[in-house]
């Protein structure tokens, strides 16, 4: 807009200002059209907008992808909840999505994501059978309560919104990363062995325990406690009935009223700070958060428990808005991802890669032995950024891949009674 301050011009500029304001109002009214990410780039430049939860979005990976394939990855980082919100409301704001399997019950019916074609994924047959069959590579069947990946891995057809019980060509998410979660503890402050989920609500740790402030995960941790104390055995902890939800929330509410919890944490750093500062000594935690506490020189253990782990997994799919070119690049990116470098990178952070064979080829034998076979470290173990994680001789909490993933009891989930559960969670917070 011209900025003439002559008397004559003033009226005009004022009027055009109004027009501009009206235009702005129009844009605001059609807010769904605003994606915030202008899709302007040169025809040849390969760019993918990658929406994910930061678990596997790192500068290292972005740089390596660029070097190997020429694809520029634009990371869009959000919390799991926000990723889901974004997929539901702004499917055109990303090209490739990296999200958790339990979100699929919400995402697939929305029709905003595209299934991936297994035939175009080179390493598809080498993806660990945890995803396709719910068992370890050695054939051991693992727990499948909750939204186990095998339940939501395949669709009946390319454009179907129905999950197939048997493997098909159409894959909802090509797995990227997964892990088995348990309680983190401060052994120096607890000073005795911990081996059961029941300890989370043990009055001994009054005012020193914490859980996640994410209803669907918090309630499952509580369910692990309920089962561990022998109060009740759930047919499926990841899909409770209303009376089961009531009962579980009652257990949590009583613990809250008795002052059991120091805090409920919502993000990674909060959980690290709570533990590192000694505000909590036992809490629901994530593996890299435990590592983060340990790198501060504070003892912290990702404690294996006899009732097993609560597991989670995430993977790739496409936005329904991608062009055929973008789709091509996305497949190239996913194939690169499974080809080993990224898998090794994730393994070194304490997560697990979807294709084990290619990851193994990209790791030193001593690294593989430490991270995946549960053996004592032959040399110092370093994080991907080169910082020291463990000194030689240490072994991983929970042991080998087979020990850890083999003890999975349930998976992060969205329940059929999710709406009821969320209401009950608000009631719990208000109690």
């Amino acid at each position, binding site marked *: 807009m011209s900025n003439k301050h002559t*008397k*004559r011009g*003033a*009226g*005009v500029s004022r*009027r055009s*200002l*109004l027009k501009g*304001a*009206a235009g*702005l*109002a129009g844009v*605001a*009214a059609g807010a769904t059209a605003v994606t915030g990410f202008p899709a302007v780039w040169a025809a040849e430049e390969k760019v993918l907008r990658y929406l994910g939860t930061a678990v596997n979005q790192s500068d290292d990976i972005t740089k390596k992808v660029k070097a190997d394939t020429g694809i520029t990855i634009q990371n869009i980082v959000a919390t799991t*909840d*926000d990723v*889901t*919100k974004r997929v*539901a409301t702004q499917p055109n704001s990303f090209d490739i999505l990296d999200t958790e399997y339990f979100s699929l*019950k*919400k*995402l697939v*019916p*929305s029709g905003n994501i595209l299934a991936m074609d297994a035939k175009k994924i080179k390493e598809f047959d080498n993806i660990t059978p945890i995803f396709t069959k719910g068992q370890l590579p050695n054939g051991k069947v693992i727990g499948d309560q909750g939204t186990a990946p095998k339940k939501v891995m395949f669709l009946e057809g390319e454009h179907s919104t129905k999950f197939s019980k048997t493997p098909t060509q159409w894959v909802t998410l090509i797995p990227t990363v997964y892990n088995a979660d348990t309680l983190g503890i401060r052994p120096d402050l607890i000073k005795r062995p911990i081996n059961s989920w029941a300890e989370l609500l043990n009055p001994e740790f009054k*005012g020193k325990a914490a859980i996640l*402030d*994410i*209803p669907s995960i918090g309630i499952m941790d509580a369910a692990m406690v309920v089962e561990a104390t022998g109060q009740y055995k759930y047919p499926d902890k990841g899909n409770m009935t209303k009376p089961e939800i009531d009962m579980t929330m009652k257990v949590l509410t009583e613990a*809250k009223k008795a002052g059991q*919890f*120091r*805090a*409920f*944490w*919502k993000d990674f750093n909060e959980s690290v*700070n709570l533990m590192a*500062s*000694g*505000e909590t000594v036992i809490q629901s935690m994530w593996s890299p958060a435990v590592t983060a506490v340990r790198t501060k020189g504070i003892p912290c253990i990702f404690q294996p428990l006899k009732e097993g782990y609560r597991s989670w997994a995430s993977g790739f799919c496409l936005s329904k808005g991608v062009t055929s070119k973008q789709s091509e690049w996305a497949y190239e990116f996913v194939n690169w991802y499974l080809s080993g470098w990224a898998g090794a990178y994730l393994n070194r952070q304490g997560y697990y890669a979807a294709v084990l064979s290619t990851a193994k080829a990209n790791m030193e034998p001593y690294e593989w032995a430490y991270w995946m076979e549960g053996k004592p470290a032959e040399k110092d173990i370093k994080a991907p950024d080169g910082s020291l994680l463990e000194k030689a001789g240490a072994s991983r909490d929970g042991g080998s891949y087979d020990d850890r993933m083999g003890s999975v009891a349930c998976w992060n989930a*969205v329940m059929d009674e*999710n*709406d009821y559960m*969320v*209401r009950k*969670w*608000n*009631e719990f*917070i*208000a*109690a």
Partner: protein
Amino acid sequence: MPKTRALESQGVPGWIQAMPFGLVFGAFFVLPLVFVVIVSFWDYNDYEMLPAFTTRSYTESFEGCLAQLPDLCTMLATYLSTAKFCLIVWALTLAIGFTVAYFLAFYVRSTTTQMVLFLVCTIPFWTSNVIRMISWIPLLGRNGLVNQLLMSTHLVHAPVEWLLYSQFSVALAFVHLFTFFMVAPIFNSMMRIDRRLIEAAYDSGASAWQMLTNVIIPLSKPGIAIGSIFVVTIVMGDYITFSVMGGGQIASAGKIIATRLNALQFPPAAASAVILLCATMVIIGVLNRIVDIRKEL
């Protein structure tokens, strides 16, 4: 452009002058609010909103509010807790804010010093309020500075737990963050008080206390009311302070909305927002009854 000239010669009518702001206000406040109200009456499932009229979001929000009495339902318990914080924070910010404003307005003689000191009050606002809030955590924690001091002076034998992640820490953070919102309008009101009135009161033999209660407080009422509106509306709608300082364990109206939004349940979140808006408007209505702000300004 004869038309423009005609307009200018008469002076631009008021409604045109008000139009730009009116449009911004309409587009970015009224319109979204209308959407929120509409959506609050929609149905929903796990992954989308269904544009069909239902009062489900409201009935479920108030679930058990009559049946559970005398036990409080989620909604009542949450609002009671929020109201309690409103009252505590309002009383404290008012007491502190009034005192600071009084000092600035009546004890500091030179206008320059007044302005300098007033600006000093704004310095904390140079950092984000989240940072100001989070800085309390290392101070108040179980092994924080305050506890270290208390322990080393043998005032207590075990760390004081209620300093952090408690109602105390939430109220403390609110008072710290929002007292200035009281100081500014009250200071403004006090500066407009005609000094001759105070002299007259003094000449008529009023004590300092009488001067305060009979002259200064009544004439500062608009400032107090405006400050109160700021503080009350902020505390009512706050989510992050409750969350961070309360360790996620203290209910607030904002938290209910956030939990619902995170579960992709937009209609009940919208309904909660409408309920919050109504509750806040009632409070402001009451304040307006006590002080007619428009008349006083």
